[in-house]
């Protein structure tokens, strides 16, 4: 639950729909989304403009600099657009070090234009940053000194006066149009709980603002207020994040519960595996393994908070499966760590882990697993005693530590002799 990026297609869909509802601006934009499952004949029936206009095609995958990467095709007919997409759909590309397949495209009418304006709104702690430039487009970073910004404090309305410094250099007629457009975009921003909007660029078509490229970020915490307004919305993973089956399983589990369950597979062949409670502590354990020079041995990042015994069992199973998947005779370590809990019953949480350990007895032995436990908080003595006992029962080395030990001390123990 946090800020989530949405696709350009959705950003524009929300902007068009709600500009009309909130300020009666009717944006003449059209866009169509294409994925692996798109039936082009059906798409053409639904979006008839596709066959009537020249088109632009680009990947819609939350990464930028598409033009610079040669992934944007301009001035095509529909057949040309389909051909462009078919050639690239599923193809693996690399963007700033992240590799991943292209799975989603956006098609829009090709708009020949001269002006390229830049507009960005971002939500800050005390208000909003609104930036505007007459020199938008792919060279925006080179022209960053030409971007004007204003800061609008929370609760202040976006008045003509507030906007004035942004559009001071524009001819008054155009300035007025763009100012109105900004006010509309800002109204949508606030009404729909956006945390970020960027149009780079937008242009003018018949004197009216027309966004060509758009990025948006929503506050997922506000989903409960916006169910109807957001409509059928997808929060795609960042580009390059392809979920393993185990990761999707845990993500799915996380979405269905009030507990927090996070699992990221870093290195399937890694020899240090994490099962850490708490958002803060999980970071620090992961940091510490890195600080000790063993970052490459780290199998996963995991964080959990408030799981039921059953949920803990499922998470632990996944981690144990991964940790034991590549035995090679060398020592492997599982860190069952966490800070001194404020209110979590440590004994009860450990019950789920212990059930998973018992299920995987032979796999744990085969993978030469050593287990290091450190936890404090309600009922921790019971929890630690149970962990110690299960180690003896299964014949697996288990070391347990309570609040008297330094939280990350078990990272050193795990690495020793590896």
């Amino acid at each position, binding site marked *: 639950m946090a800020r989530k990026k949405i696709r350009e297609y959705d950003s524009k869909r929300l902007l068009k729909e709600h500009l009309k509802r909130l300020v009666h601006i009717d944006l003449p934009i059209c866009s169509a989304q294409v994925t692996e499952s798109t039936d082009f004949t059906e798409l053409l029936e639904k979006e008839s403009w596709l066959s009537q206009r020249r088109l632009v095609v680009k990947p819609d995958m939350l990464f930028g600099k598409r033009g610079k990467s040669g992934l944007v095709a301009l001035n095509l007919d529909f057949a040309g657009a389909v051909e462009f997409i078919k050639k690239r759909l599923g193809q693996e590309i690399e963007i700033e070090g992240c590799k991943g397949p292209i799975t989603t495209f956006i098609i829009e009418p090709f708009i020949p234009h001269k002006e390229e304006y830049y507009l960005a709104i971002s939500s800050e702690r005390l208000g909003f940053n609104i930036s505007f430039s007459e020199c938008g487009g792919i060279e925006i970073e080179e022209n960053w000194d030409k971007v004007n910004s204003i800061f609008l404090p*929370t609760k202040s309305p976006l008045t003509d006066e507030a906007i004035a410094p942004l559009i001071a250099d524009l001819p008054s007629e155009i300035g007025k149009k763009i100012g109105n457009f900004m006010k509309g975009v800002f109204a949508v921003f*606030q009404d729909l709980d956006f945390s970020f909007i960027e149009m780079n660029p937008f242009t003018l078509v018949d004197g009216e603002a027309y966004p060509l490229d758009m990025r948006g970020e929503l506050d997922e915490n506000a989903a409960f207020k916006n169910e109807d307004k957001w409509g059928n919305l997808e929060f795609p993973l960042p580009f390059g994040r392809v979920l393993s089956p185990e990761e999707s399983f845990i993500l799915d589990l996380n979405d269905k519960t009030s507990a927090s369950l996070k699992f990221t597979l870093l290195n399937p062949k890694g020899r240090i595996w994490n099962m850490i409670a708490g958002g803060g502590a999980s970071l620090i354990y992961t940091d510490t393994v890195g600080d000790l020079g063993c970052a490459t041995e780290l199998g996963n990042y995991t964080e959990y908070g408030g799981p039921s015994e059953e949920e803990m069992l499922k998470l632990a199973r996944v981690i144990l499966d991964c940790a034991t998947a590549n035995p090679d005779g060398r020592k492997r370590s599982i860190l069952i760590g966490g800070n001194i809990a404020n209110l979590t019953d440590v004994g009860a949480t450990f019950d789920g882990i212990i059930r998973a350990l018992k299920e995987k007895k032979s796999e744990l032995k085969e993978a030469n697993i050593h287990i290091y436990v450190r936890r404090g908080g309600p009922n921790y003595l019971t929890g630690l005693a149970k962990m110690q006992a299960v180690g003896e029962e299964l014949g697996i080395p288990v070391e347990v530590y309570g609040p008297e030990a330094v939280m990350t001390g078990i990272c050193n123990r795990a690495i020793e002799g590896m």
Partner: protein
Amino acid sequence: MATGQLFSRTTQALFYNYKQLPIQRMLDFDFLCGRETPSVAGIINPGAEGFQKLFFGQEEIAIPVHSTIEAACAAHPTADVFINFASFRSAAASSMSALKQPTIRVVAIIAEGVPESDTKQLIAYARSNNKVVIGPATVGGIQAGAFKIGDTAGTIDNIVQCKLYRPGSVGFVSKSGGMSNEMYNTIARVTDGIYEGIAIGGDVFPGSTLSDHILRFNNIPQVKMMVVLGELGGRDEYSLVEALKQGKVNKPVVAWVSGTCARLFKSEVQFGHAGAKSGGEMESAQAKNQALKEAGAVVPTSYEAFEAAIKETFDKLVEEGKITPIKEVKPPQIPEDLNSAIKSGKVRAPTHIISTISDDRGEEPCYAGVPMSSIVEQGFGVGDVISLLWFKRSLPRYCTKFIEICVMLCADHGPCVSGAHNTIVTARAGKDLVSSLVSGLLTIGPRFGGAIDDAARYFKDAYDRGLTPYEFVESMKKKGIRVPGIGHRIKRGDNRDKRVELLQLFARTNFPSVKYMEYAVQVETYTLSKANNLVLNVDGAIGSLFLDLLAGSGMFTKQEIDEIVEIGYLNGLFVLARSIGLIGHTFDQKRLKQPLYRHPWEDVLYTK
């Protein structure tokens, strides 16, 4: 923000949304610190009023419960902290109402998942009205020896361990609530302990920031040094960097920003906290640590070295004579709660109730050990449920089907029988469903509906003793007892009760043995020879066939059968069945809007 103390030993809070455990933990902390007044003055539980009983040390106290924030503030004008345990959906609205109360100075919001735009409204209001918001998404904070928010610092053992019952010299602030507890422990190990600790919460926009609290700590004379635990994501730490650079902080600050691991992840990762996201370089842990170091904070090389850095800084202050040694006190013992004592195996307490037929504690309710899902999945009927809950075993389907037939046959017998009549009269008197039902049920007894048990008892006794029908009937006659289960007001030898025929047919087709029923039929043959209306009636048929069910199924010992007949199981069957009809009669009368029933004079013989 800035200014100094938020809390003291007399601070009182209003607690929004009743939660027994965190309030009790606050009161236990109060007792440990030797506070004279409990730190919770009142509870706000929307829609409820009255009192909540809680412990203050050994004693029980009643804390007033109010239904609105306004009423609570009016009743407790000196309570200036508002602890909000509302859900993420309603936390923002209730926090705003609290901030608008003139008596409230500090609002702590526990919920995780409050929309950013709502939090921003709270921040803006608090700033322009000089109030403090802690959270959202936090456990809260604590001033050692004085005041504690909700679940902060966990168990009493931990609070004692970390010496939080008396003030030390360290001001601490972190994003993470879990790590704040860990750090209280760490700090207690290498210094004289915490003076005050705040967890600002893991959201992108916390109500108050790391630097807000550091600047405040700087103004509190008892705080001699500050410890900060930041996190990657956001730019919060830079306002602290600015404050340090501008020389606004003149006490040592030891700081660490966690999340150096983010560079291990190739694509963008959302870590545990909403605000913890690998964004641009500025927001990385490395950059923030570097900036803090350059601004003059003591920044260790890793989290592992954090403890040593805190120790070193504290020891230096001791050397410089800036720390006044603390007089150690021994906190009083908090009486342990019965529940936790039982859980830890320290005490045992006898139970007051024993139950053997059902259990609602697991994932799903069980009837006699059979989970609800298998009852539904296996297509069980009411008869099977009766078999589980009454007989504590799964009887074969022919038995449970027989039970169901009995229930169906006995469900109703028209409006004129005494039970139905009573129900109808009661319903027409305007009484509710349960009253109408029980007025009918209360009629069931020796003369109405109670004959099944007796029929079974007498038939069983006679058969088991090997009495011939003649011996049985005549011995009953001698005792002046009518044979239960024999005789009908209307039915005759040549016009048998259809219900009896149906039961007999089912039993002859499905039961392995029907010896008790055959005996009852022999008895009937004999009684019919005496009078044409002395037929085996439905009570007699059910009674005798139930004996066959119990004996023939092979699932009951002789003792069990005796007990079943003895304690009135069969009467239970009638009560259950007839309830269906009586409920029907109640609804029928209500649907028909029938007026009060009055018996006509003409129908009463008035006489001396």
